[in-house]
C-alpha cells in the first residue's frame, strides 16, 4: 500500500486569489409540510454560503436529513431557492433563467440513488445520448455513438458497445453508478454535484468511483461537490470539508485540518462516532441516544444546543455565525476557540427540554 497522502493533500487553491467556479450566498430552502392548509415550514437549508473553486473536490458531510441533498438540488437548479443566490462564473443563476440550458451543460448532478436515476424502460445509455443531442448539437448520429462509447469506456464499462445496449436491469449497482457518472460527464461539465455516490455500494465498487473522481479532478480539472456520510472517503478524495447540521453549515475548512482539529462540537461528535476497525482500543464510548432535531419552524439560536455539552446562555438566543478559527477553517459556534482542546469526548447530557 502506497502512502499517497502527500500528493493528495493541499491541492486546494488559495481562496484569496482563485476565481470561484460556483458560489452560493445565503442559500435557503424551506418546504411547506403538513396538510393543504398547513403553514408549517421545514427549514431544509438555511442561509448557506458555499464556494467551489475550479479543480477542487469539496466534501459535504452531516447527519441524515441535514439538507445535503437539498443543497445539491438547489445548485443543480432542480429547486428554486426560497432565498439566496447562486453565482456561476460570476453570473447569477436567476439572471440565467432563460438560458438555463447552457448552465445545464456546465453543471451536472449524480443522483443519490443509482437504482432510481436510470429510466428502466430505456437502455441505460439513453441519458448519455439525450445529453449529447441536447448539448452537443454539432455531433451527427454516428459521432454521438462514438462519443458515447468513449464516455462509457472512460468510466470503465467495457466493452463499450455492449454496455451501450444494456438495460438498467441488466446492470449491477456499481455499473449503474458509473452510468450515472457517465451521464453527468456526457456534456463535459465543469462541476459535478455527486450526491452520496457510494453510500449504497460495497467497498469494492466504492473505491472505483472514488478513484475516478480524483482522476477526473486531477487530470481534467472537473470540480466536485461530494456529498457523503462516509467521512473516511471524504478524507480520501476531498480538498475541503463542509459539515452540515440541521440545515446549516457548522464547520468548513481543508479536510485534514478539520479532521485533525475539529472545532464545532457536532463535528467532534461525528468524528468520535466513526468506528475504526484498525484501532485496538476497546474502550466503550458513551451512549448518546438523543434524536436529531426537527427543523420545522426553528427559532433563533444554535440548532445543536440541545445536544451540546458546552451550551451557554447565548446559544439559546443567537444563531452563531461562521468564524474563522484557523487558516481557511471556520466554525459556527459561540464557544469554540482556536485553541480549544480538540480531544474532548462528548459526554451524555441530562436530557434538556427540547422544543
Amino acid at each position, binding site marked *: 500500500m502506497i502512502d499517497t497522502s502527500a500528493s493528495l493533500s493541499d491541492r486546494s487553491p488559495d481562496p484569496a486569489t482563485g476565481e470561484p467556479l460556483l458560489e452560493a450566498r445565503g442559500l435557503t430552502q424551506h418546504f411547506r409540510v403538513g396538510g393543504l392548509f398547513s403553514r408549517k415550514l421545514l427549514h431544509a437549508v438555511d442561509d448557506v454560503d458555499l464556494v467551489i473553486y475550479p479543480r477542487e473536490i469539496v466534501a459535504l458531510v452531516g447527519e441524515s436529513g441535514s439538507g445535503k441533498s437539498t443543497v445539491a438540488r438547489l445548485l443543480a437548479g432542480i429547486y428554486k431557492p426560497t432565498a439566496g443566490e447562486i453565482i456561476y462564473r460570476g453570473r447569477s443563476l436567476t439572471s440565467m433563467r432563460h438560458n438555463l440550458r447552457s448552465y445545464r451543460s456546465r453543471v451536472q448532478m449524480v443522483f443519490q440513488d443509482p437504482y432510481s436515476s436510470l429510466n428502466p424502460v430505456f437502455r441505460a445509455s439513453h441519458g448519455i445520448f439525450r445529453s449529447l443531442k441536447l448539448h452537443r448539437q454539432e455531433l451527427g448520429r454516428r459521432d454521438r455513438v462514438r462519443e458515447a462509447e468513449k464516455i462509457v469506456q472512460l468510466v470503465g464499462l467495457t466493452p463499450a458497445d455492449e454496455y451501450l445496449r444494456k438495460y438498467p436491469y441488466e446492470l449491477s449497482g456499481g455499473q449503474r453508478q458509473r452510468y450515472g457518472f457517465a451521464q453527468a460527464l456526457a456534456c463535459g461539465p465543469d462541476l459535478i454535484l455527486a450526491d452520496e455516490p457510494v453510500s449504497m455500494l460495497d467497498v469494492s465498487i466504492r473505491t472505483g468511483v472514488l478513484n475516478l473522481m480524483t482522476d477526473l479532478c486531477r487530470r*481534467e480539472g472537473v470540480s466536485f461537490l461530494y456529498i457523503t456520510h462516509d467521512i473516511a472517503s471524504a478524507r480520501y478524495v476531498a480538498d475541503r470539508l463542509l459539515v452540515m447540521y440541521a440545515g446549516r453549515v457548522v464547520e468548513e475548512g481543508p479536510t485534514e485540518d478539520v479532521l485533525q482539529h475539529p472545532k464545532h462540537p457536532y463535528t467532534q461528535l461525528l468524528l468520535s462516532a466513526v468506528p475504526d476497525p484498525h484501532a485496538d482500543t476497546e474502550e466503550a464510548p458513551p451512549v448518546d441516544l438523543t434524536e436529531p432535531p426537527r427543523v420545522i419552524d426553528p427559532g433563533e439560536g444554535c440548532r445543536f444546543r440541545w445536544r451540546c455539552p458546552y451550551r451557554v446562555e447565548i446559544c439559546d438566543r443567537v444563531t452563531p455565525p461562521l468564524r474563522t478559527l484557523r487558516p481557511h477553517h471556520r466554525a459556527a459556534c459561540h464557544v469554540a476557540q482556536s485553541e480549544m482542546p480538540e480531544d474532548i469526548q462528548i459526554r451524555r447530557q441530562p436530557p434538556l427540554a427540547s422544543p
Partner: protein
Amino acid sequence: MYQHIAVDDEARVAPVLPQSKLPARPGMLARVGSVILSNRKALVGVIILAAIVVTAVFAPVLAPYDPNATVGPPGAPPSHAFWLGTTSQGQDILSQLIWGSRETLIIGIVAGLAATMLAVLIGVSAAYLGGVADNLLSSVTDIFLVIPALPLMIVIAAYARGGGMWVLIGVIAITGWSFGARQLRPQALSLRNREFLESARVRGENSAYVIVFEVLPNMVSLIVAIFLGAALYAILAAAGLQFIGLGNPSDLSWGTMLYWGENNEALMTGSPLWIVAPGTCIALLGASVAFINYAVDELANPSLRGARRKRAKK
C-alpha cells in the same frame, strides 16, 4: 475529452472466461407473451377474445343470413336452418349474434381507449404538475368517482337518446375515466420523485418530453390494465344501457339483442336463446378481458407472479 483517463477495473482483469453466459433478457413483448402462455387463465382469455374478434371481423362471411332480414317464421325454435332459432320478427338469432359482436367489441375498445386516454391525461397531469393543478384535478377525479356513474350515464344517455353507438361510447368514456385516473396518479406521483426524471431535467429536457417519453413508458402495464378494466366496464355498461333502451334499438349489438329479446318475452315464449345467447357472449367477452387483465396485473405487480414451485429436489 477525457481520453487519457480510464478507470476501468474490469479492463484490468484480463477475461479468463467469457464473464457471463447470460441469455439475453427478453423484451417487453416477449415477456407479455411468456406470461400469457405460462398463465392458463390468460391463455383461455386470449383464445376467447381472439375467437370473438375473428367473428366480428369476418361477420359477413360467417353469418348465414342477413341479421335484419325476415328469413324464417317468427319465434322458430333452434333447427337445422336456424341453429339458435329466430326472433319474433323471423330474423336469424345466430346471424344477429355474429353481427352484434361488432358493435359490442367496438364499444369495448373505443370507449375503453377513450376512458384510458382521459385517465392518463388527467391522472398523470395531476401528478406531474403538482400544487394547485394537482389539487384541482384530483378533486375533479374524486368527484367523478363519487358521483354515481350509472345515473349520470342514464341522464346523459337519455338526453342524447338515439345517437346510437357513438353517444354510448362518449357517455361511458365520460363516466369511466375517473377510476383509472385515480390509480394512475399515485404511480405517476411515485415516478415524479424518481431521480431519473430529475436527471432528465438536469440534462435540460422540457416538461412535455419528460411526461411523454420518460414517465408514460414506465406505466405501460398499469395503463394496459386500466384499459382492460375500462373496456370491461364499457362492455357491461353499454349492455346495461342498451338493455333499458337507452341505446339506439335499431343498432345491432348484444345489448340491443337483450333489449329486444326481453321486450318480446323471449324466455317465456319459446325462444330463450334470444336472451341466453347474447348474455352468455357478453359474459364470455367480459371473462376473457378479466382473465387477460389478471395476467397483466401479475405482469405489473411481480409479487403476484409465479405460483409455488413444486418441491422437486430432495
